């Protein structure tokens, strides 16, 4: 981001957020004092839990102590000034210490920088191992509507919305964008990703702004949304993970967070209102798929411990262990494994598909004037409840794109076949019990697993042909090859293989991981049912 834009964004952000709150207070929707007290309450609570762990602890604590005194005796104008200070404090933290000179360099040296990100080891170790480092170029395959994405980038501002399973996703998307010749996208990265100084350095300079998920203050969330809105209005392409956080279950996200998604529509309306030359905002879904997931074990454990209300922040997973990342990358490279980045057809902020020129289309492919969705009484207007519904429609359209462009690999279909067989063999057991006990048999006959896999592939192949799902290269061969590829991947990285072969038997050794990988096929109403929706209640225990 250009430094003059940065200045402008912070100034405009403070003015917008403060203006909205002040107007809200005047309209009787909660006074400024309440707003500020709420902020102070949330921040003090956060700082009490933090106990000096975060680098900005002392500075933050001093800031909120100082505010407390001003709140007690402050007159209206003091409160306004205090509000500006709080919003400014948040805005500067979100923006971070971005350096445009480094940005210029980083953009040029992107591929090696991302190589380091992916490997996340010390520069010394990196130098020693350099010859054996996997080349990203070979590892990341970008496919789908790449050409349309390039054109939409020319015709308006793009918001890229990928699926999210791993902390490696943002560097992977960053590299994919570089590979197809697009500049870095602006995106909000969790504070935990900034703890590694090397990663932090590049994240900052590849367009990342900071999102501290521990901050519960609604005013802070307003600042984040306004920051994203303003950067879109300034023409910066954005990257959001609309699932909000990494998928704990391993399933492709069906429920999306609408708060950030709505910023595309807000920016579009603002663009129309000020007569911006390129007002259009395009939302482009994208799916990421690989045979193995770095943090699978931690994520699925979290999912099972608290079905439905997983921890939003995990800071002690595989991603925090550089050694694990290195093992993961080099073992995958030894297997010639690829991560597929599939770009879906772009859409407008209402969820309508757009053509290659960025013209919105109705469901039958006819051009429509999408401005009419927001014009009322002769001008483009924000209408909160209507816009929230449009954003719901957009979220649904993104979910459908995720489902169509979800690429499944050998590990996913193998896990589904093995787990499905376990469910069939143990019809009276809940999913949780199957995971804990493994069911009545210790292992399964290889031929039964192969038959189940063949049946599953027979079901998936026509769906692939109809564009309802994508079968990855490793899931396209005969069942024997697919299973052997799946089992080989399971054996190379995880602490315990999800399943392994012993003679003519298949041992489902880690059912939790099997569930995780099979979940990638959830939501398709495949024969045998969906484990999560059919069984969500039962995952908590008990018999069916």
């Amino acid at each position, binding site marked *: 981001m250009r430094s003059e834009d940065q200045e402008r964004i912070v100034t405009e952000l403070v003015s917008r957020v403060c203006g909205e709150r002040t107007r809200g207070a005047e309209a009787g929707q909660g006074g400024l004092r309440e707003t500020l007290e709420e902020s102070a309450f949330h921040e003090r609570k956060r700082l009490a839990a933090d106990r000096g762990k975060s680098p900005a602890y002392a500075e933050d604590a001093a800031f909120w102590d100082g505010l407390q005194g001003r709140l007690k005796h402050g007159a209206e104008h003091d409160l306004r000034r205090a509000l500006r200070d709080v919003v400014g404090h948040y805005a500067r933290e979100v923006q971070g210490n971005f350096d445009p000179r480094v940005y210029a360099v980083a953009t040029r040296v992107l591929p090696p920088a991302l190589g380091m990100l992916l490997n996340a080891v010390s520069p010394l170790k990196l130098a020693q191992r350099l010859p054996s480092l996997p080349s990203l170029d070979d590892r990341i395959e970008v496919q789908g509507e790449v050409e349309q994405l390039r054109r939409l980038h020319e015709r308006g501002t793009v918001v890229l919305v990928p699926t999210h399973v791993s902390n490696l996703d943002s560097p992977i998307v960053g590299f994919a964008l570089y590979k197809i010749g697009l500049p870095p996208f602006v995106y909000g990265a969790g504070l935990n990703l900034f703890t590694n100084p090397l990663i932090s350095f590049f994240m900052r300079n590849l367009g990342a702004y900071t999102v501290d998920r521990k901050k519960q203050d609604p005013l802070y969330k307003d600042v984040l949304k306004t920051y994203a809105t303003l950067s879109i209005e300034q023409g910066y392409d954005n990257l959001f993970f609309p699932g909000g956080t990494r998928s704990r279950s391993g399933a492709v996200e069906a429920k999306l967070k609408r708060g950030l998604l709505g910023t595309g529509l807000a920016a579009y309306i603002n663009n129309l209102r000020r007569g911006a030359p390129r007002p259009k905002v395009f939302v482009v879904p994208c799916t990421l798929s690989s045979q193995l997931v770095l943090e699978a074990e931690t994520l699925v454990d979290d999912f099972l411990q608290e079905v439905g209300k997983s921890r939003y922040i995990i800071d002690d997973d595989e991603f925090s262990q550089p050694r694990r990342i290195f093992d993961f990358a080099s073992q995958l490279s030894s297997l010639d494994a690829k991560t597929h980045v599939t770009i879906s057809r772009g859409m407008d902020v209402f969820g309508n598909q757009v053509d290659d020129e960025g013209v919105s289309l109705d*469901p039958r492919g006819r051009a429509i004037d999408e401005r*009419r969705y927001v014009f009322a009484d002769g001008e483009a207007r924000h209408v909160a409840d209507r816009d929230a519904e449009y954003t719901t429609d957009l979220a649904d359209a993104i979910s459908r794109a995720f489902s169509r462009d979800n690429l499944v690999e050998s590990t996913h279909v193998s896990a589904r076949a093995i787990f499905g067989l376990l469910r069939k063999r143990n019809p009276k057991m809940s999913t949780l019990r199957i995971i804990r006990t493994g069911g009545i048999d210790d292992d399964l006959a290889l031929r039964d697993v192969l038959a189940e896999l063949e049946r599953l592939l027979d079901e998936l192949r026509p769906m692939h042909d109809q564009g309802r799902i994508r079968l990855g290269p490793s899931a396209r061969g005969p069942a024997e090859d697919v299973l052997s590829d799946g089992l080989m991947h399971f054996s190379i990285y995880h602490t315990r293989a999800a399943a392994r072969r012993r003679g003519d038997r298949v041992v489902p050794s880690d059912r939790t991981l099997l569930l995780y990988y099979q979940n990638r096929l959830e939501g398709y109403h495949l024969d045998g049912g969906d484990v999560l929706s059919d069984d969500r209640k039962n995952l908590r225990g008990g018999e069916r």
Partner: protein
Amino acid sequence: MGALLIAPPEPRLDPHGVAIIGAGPFARAIAQIVVASGARPRVFVRRLGERPELSKGLGQAELSDDLPRVLDGARLVVFAVPAGELEDIATRAGPHLMPDQVALVVSRGLTEGFLLPHEHLRRQTCLRQIGVLGGPLNIAELEAGRRLNVVIATRYRAVLEIARHFTSATRVSFEPTRDLIGVSIAGAIANVASIAAGLAEALELGATARGVLQARGVFEATRLGTAHGAEASTFGGLAGLGELIPRDVRSMERHEELGRALATMPLSAAMEKVGGHVEGVLTAQVASERARQRGLELPLVQGLQAVMSGEDEARKRLDSILVKPLAEGRG
């Protein structure tokens, strides 16, 4: 922020413009309401030349068989054709519709692929601000100057505002809900229950049997609806239980008549005898198919489907449905 206005999209819609697609009793009732509000609706009628009698009683309404002209500039578009014709009419209307138009769907019934009426509009047109009309559409009350209570399901406030605008001077009260799926499924399955009620009547099973079948209809609509994301409470309200209010509506009467005819003749003959559109027939077929796919038990819907397709004998099947406790089976 300083609003530097850009030229608004053209053409502008007429805020009082109403297009009504269809010429059945509901379409006519709505046309009368709109006329009473002082506006002049345009009503699309196929083959108007062959049916000059349709214009009677519609006062200021303008009847036309020119679809683009009827739709042009209308802020509100009412779709009041039989559910089976909705896909076709939506496809034809699509090129002439605009994103800022508001739609109200009066059609009832499920169609191939388990599509609800409003879903045809979402699949064929750019319309988003859509409402679905439900509840006891007892238009006879309106004609007699009595209060009419209906349900409007929509996610968009503009739909309710427009409905309020056109009904403020009438005795129509409406209850808003966001549950489009629930209201649509409740209305569709009520037709199926009406067929069953007619059949029970012809077989002289008695008033209790009739009541049990209708209660079962609401119960099965709830089960089918909640499996598709509807709210259970919708079915206990005006759009669900409200459907049991006895009323003098031709489409409902046709469903009962079809049921009565089924006691003595096969479906094809019964349909010929009744004539007109009996949406409940396709609804029963589509709902049974979906129940089979999803492992849902819908004894009434599936039983009636078996009777209509000639697989099962009517009296025997109805008997088996009547002895089944409502709460049995998985939902």
